[in-house]
């Protein structure tokens, strides 16, 4: 079995029996339009590329980040802690963070 170095595998050659319970559930990422300054850290460092830079301008004139694909989210919380503006809030899919 090959494992891709340094990346989370997205293709499983066999689904584990407890996949439904163990697989990370997508969280809800909320990006505060008023605080976002479009630095791009969340987009760049999201391990699943679930976020993207949009063309939309926020109320302060910055191009802001948006959720690209909610279903890819792993609730890892990196976007929340890598945002320098305290603009991102993650509501995790799981009960515990």
């Amino acid at each position, binding site marked *: 079995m090959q494992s891709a170095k340094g990346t989370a595998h997205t293709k499983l050659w066999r689904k584990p029996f407890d996949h439904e319970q163990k697989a990370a559930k997508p969280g809800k990422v*909320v990006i*505060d339009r*008023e*605080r976002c*300054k*479009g*630095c*791009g*850290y969340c987009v*760049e*460092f999201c391990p699943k590329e679930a976020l993207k830079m949009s063309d939309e301008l926020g109320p*302060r004139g*910055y191009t802001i980040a948006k959720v690209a694909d909610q279903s890819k989210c792993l609730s890892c919380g*990196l976007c929340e*802690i*890598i*945002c*320098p*503006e*305290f*603009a991102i*809030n993650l509501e995790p899919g799981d009960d515990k963070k």
Partner: protein
Amino acid sequence: MVTVTSKPIDQYLRVDRMPHIWCAGCGIGLATSCFIRGIERAGLDLDKIAVVSGIGCTGRVAGYVKFDSFHTTHGRALPFATGLKLGNPELKVVVFSGDGDLAAIGGNHLIHSARRNIDMTVICINNFNYGMTGGQMGPTTPLEARSTTSPYGNFEYPFNLPYLVAASGATYVARWTVLHLRQLERCIAEALVKPGFSFIEVLSPCPTVYGRMNKRARGLDEMHYYQEKSVIRNGADPKEADIVLDGPIVVGKFIDIKRPTLWDYRRQVLDKALEQKKPQAEKGAVASQEQ
């Protein structure tokens, strides 16, 4: 202005002052966010935290966190914090300031505070220049780096802050970049709880000035540089942590030793001396009782 959605982290922030003034891509917000999570992790009494900052972009941190905070004069956060701590030793004193503030104008106070091993935590955000005033070189600007006061390239050799502070006597010295979010959070939590002078250097992008003048105009460029060039060497000798322009960056926890703090030594010395100097009358009274 208060934003629409409220987040758990907002309880630690002065939300009526959000969004903050730091530029898009600036790492100070990240360091502040790690700081707040470090405080949570350490389980501190929030009412006893006193944040003291100096002047500069990093100095503005004091104004955004919801603790007793003091935005003092340039370079003088450390002596102010010393007075606070000696006036009320129960305070958990944190100094949050920049590379120019702490190591240039405040350099003398930095080495003396480390020498005394006074119990406080210093978070020094190093963005390699004086950002607030437009990007002048500072004591940590790498050799040959461009800045507004070194337009041909900096010809001064910079400080190696962990080396300087460790040599002066600090008992906890670490360096991380703002990309090392989890390590920085843990490091801050550890430093906050540890008695003695703890110094954490945090490297940060400064895209608007330093980055732009040194071919890393986007915060992302600097973050990629950290990603590619930083090397974690816990326990490394700080002497080997020099930073050269575009070169490798050694990060990690370098020093974590035990040494009595200023207060410990003070108590030790005074208790011994004042015990010996107890008034003669008392000793006489005991003697007469024995008779």
